[in-house]
């Protein structure tokens, strides 16, 4: 395991407290058992586990049932694997699955970064991963800095139960909404002025809602910034497999490795199979941290959000099929790019400009010219018109905390080509009507 330097970046009270309870006899006994488990044949002198209220006395009944109903035993677990699977609730996660996740993440980055399976903590979705990290890195009342525009779900996922606040880092269209050092400084100073402690910066790369991959240059600046301020960096890379040209994606992991893992224990990556593999229902997320204490705390805390063992087993099998994953990643990227080009072309024909994008399942379109007034209210009035007249649900930039009015996120990957054509037609008609109204 690659070790980072001894951590000086502080963790939250929740993370460092003993309330995880694992120092108690209750857990110490389990550990002793795990290290030396009794087996009648192979380890008769081992520890017998009587501290775990698990019922194995009736397993044969379930196995018999599955024997008689072969369909239910599908999903790569089979009857012989069923018992193991059904009982497995280790918060370390299935070793094989973690191994495959690490390899898959390397594949996406085309070997430009390496991932150690021991640093992967599995969670039931990236939503849970983001919340977990927030609990671990920040105390109630502290804040995370997040560049705008950002995924509306963060307001809920990162704040609801944690009591942590979000301070936006404002980005502008003048440079394609890229994060600047100035914007970072401004946000940091603002937090200081409000007497709020900044614990970390959360980046989404590629960006949601922008649909752009962050450049190497910006990532380097960001890493320098967080190091200088002695705060954490969370890089949400759930769309990393959805960058149209794989070489246009630079993961923070690459930068960390290029820097020889110096000062990397402030860096944490969030991943998920919901976007890249299109499996949101499976609830598979992961935290990858270079910080041992964070890995330990996250692992314990993942008890609240474990991935079903059956799902882990099945996906381990799927991800191990290298031919499948190679082909999948390549084909998926092509299809996304084609879809992206199709919609941006269509929007252009309707007189709408989009931010040049190279990733993700959406594009960021500019309807500012249509606004009666360049305000949030103006934008929402326009949004309401689009929803009710054109009957299209698109997401207004204000719900993503965009500081400029008139931008909208439009998703294109969740429908058929035909439906997309219908949508584009509706947009075109809508634009025509708007133009006619404006000319009056």
């Amino acid at each position, binding site marked *: 395991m690659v070790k980072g330097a001894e951590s000086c970046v502080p963790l939250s009270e929740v993370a460092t407290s003993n309330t995880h309870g694992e120092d108690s*006899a209750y857990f110490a006994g389990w550990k002793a058992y795990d290290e030396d488990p009794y087996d009648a044949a192979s380890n008769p002198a081992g520890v017998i586990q009587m501290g775990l209220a*698990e019922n194995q006395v009736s397993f044969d009944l379930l196995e018999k*049932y599955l024997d008689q109903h072969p369909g239910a035993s599908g*999903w790569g677990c089979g009857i012989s694997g069923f018992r193991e699977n059904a009982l497995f609730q280790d918060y370390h996660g299935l070793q094989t699955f973690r191994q495959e996740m690490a390899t898959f993440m390397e594949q996406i980055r085309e070997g430009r970064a390496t991932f150690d399976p021991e640093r992967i903590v599995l969670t039931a979705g990236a939503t849970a991963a983001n919340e977990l990290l927030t609990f671990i890195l920040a105390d109630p009342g502290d804040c995370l800095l997040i560049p705008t525009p950002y995924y509306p779900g963060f307001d809920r996922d990162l704040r609801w139960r944690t009591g942590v606040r979000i301070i936006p880092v404002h980005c502008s269209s003048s440079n394609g909404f890229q994060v600047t050092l100035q914007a970072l400084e401004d946000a940091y100073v603002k937090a200081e002025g409000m007497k709020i402690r900044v614990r970390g910066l959360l980046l989404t790369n590629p960006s949601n809602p922008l649909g752009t991959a962050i450049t190497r240059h910006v990532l380097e600046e960001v890493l320098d910034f967080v190091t200088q301020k002695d705060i954490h960096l969370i890089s949400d890379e759930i769309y990393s497999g959805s960058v149209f040209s794989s070489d246009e994606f630079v993961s923070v992991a690459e930068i960390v490795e290029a820097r020889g893992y110096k000062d990397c224990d402030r860096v944490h990556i969030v991943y998920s199979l919901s976007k890249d593999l299109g499996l949101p*229902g499976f609830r598979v997320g992961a935290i990858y941290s270079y910080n041992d204490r964070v890995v330990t705390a996250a692992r314990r805390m993942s*008890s609240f959000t474990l991935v079903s063992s059956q799902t882990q087993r*099945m996906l381990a099998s799927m991800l191990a099929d290298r031919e499948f994953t190679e082909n999948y990643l390549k084909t998926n990227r092509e299809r996304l790019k084609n879809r992206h080009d199709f919609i941006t072309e269509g929007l252009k024909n309707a007189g709408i400009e989009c931010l040049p994008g190279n990733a993700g399942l959406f594009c960021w379109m500019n309807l500012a010219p249509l606004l009666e007034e360049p305000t949030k209210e103006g934008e929402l009035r326009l949004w309401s018109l689009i929803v009710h007249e054109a*009957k299209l649900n698109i997401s207004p930039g204000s719900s993503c905390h965009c500081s400029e009015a008139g931008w909208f996120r439009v998703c294109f990957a*969740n429908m058929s080509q035909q*439906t997309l054509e219908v949508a584009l037609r509706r947009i075109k008609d809508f634009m025509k009507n708007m133009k006619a109204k404006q000319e009056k």
Partner: protein
Amino acid sequence: MRVIVPLQAVVQGRGGLVLGSLIPCALFYFLQLYIRRDRPSSSASNLPELAPMPRSLSRSLLSPRGSSGPVRLSSRGASVARDDDNPYYVGLKRCAEDPYHHSSNPNGFMQLGLAENWLSLDMIRDWLVGNVKEPLLLDEEGELSIHGLATYQPYDGLMDLKMAVAEFMGQVMQGSVSFHPSQIVLTAGATPAVETLSFCLADPGNAFLVPSPYYPGWDRDIKWRTGIELIPVPCRSTDNFSISIAALELAYNQAKKRGVKVCAVLVSNPSNPVGNLIDRETLYDLLDFVMEKNIHLISDEVFAGSTYGNDRFVSVAEVLDSENFDRRRVHIIYGLSKDLCVPGFRVGVIYSYNENVLAAASKLARFSSISTPTQCLLISILSNTKFITEYLKVNKEQLCDMHALFVDGLKQLGINCASSSGGFYCWADMSMFIQSYNEKGELKLWDKLLNEAKINVTPGSSCHCIEPGWFRCCFTTLTKQDIPIVMERIHRITESN
């Protein structure tokens, strides 16, 4: 509530009280006694005989119908339960209510606000078909649709699974009560179920009263991230560790004196770690208690289907059905890890009668949702009610046999167990083998059992048991052949003590 404090003194016969507090005390006794009068007698009663009072009157004295007020959600819970007026979510909702379909609803809303990728699902489907036998997620046309591979599903579980779980719970409770799927929130295990429920009911610094000994996991599951305090309310071996309302009352007032707000009483039934059942009488008392204090009652019933004694398990749901209690303060925790033996699949249940709690909990479920293929597998297994009935029956028989063998084995070593009718363990009294009658002595014995005899049992102190020397011994991961070996190892330690 100065009234109640002298009560304790009266019970203990210390007397010497101001008249002004004697009368309310007496009233309180009348109430307690009258409530007990209409129910099957309880062995736990220790109040003096007094004349009865009409029950509805006493009810109106303490908790007038309708005006005890809606029981409070935490401020966190309340803010989560409120509807989101952020256009991001409003748009998603509108679309879901009237979705576009090329033939059946061409004028419907088109969803461009949802970042999901359907473009390459065909490849996933092909892989599944090629590699996995009879996948459950394909519909008749071989499409990955209905059950949620293709899209996000409700975070609090597929309706089909909620229905199957409601049905299962009914079977577990042996038909004495029926459960409604609309009152269920599914989570990835009972661990997040109890934490999520706690977030909804209490704010940081608030407390739950928990009869002890209790399940050690709660110290982590409930206290860790929520900032809620757990106040152990000791039960005694003299009455087989039954819940005492008087003790709850005392603990409530002590908390109040400290300025700590108690929001709920949390019980497990069947009890973990003791294994006894809460009788009907005590359930009524608990409900009266929480009503009087205007707090919640959480009943963790994860072992409800794993009973084996002569006593019948009575869920708090059954009592609610038969009486006119304010249900909005009652919540049940359940799951499939114990009764169906599938802890790896992560299926927990919050069952609540409170729509605000359900609203908040179903939103919070996003942090701990169950994987859809697992939900599908379980729908399939649980729907086979004939199998489930047979399974529950045989499981109980097997638990009963193991329990009897184990308790007997311990008895032969001179170790008695608390009387238990449920769970996977027995609650054994090894106090005669500890050198000093305190926690230190108990842990010394635990250490010997673990490191010398190589047996992992759970010491009572981890469960906040007030009497040293009790140990929880689980027997359900053993085979019958293992039992003599276990006994022999325990004997090695106990004979040297």
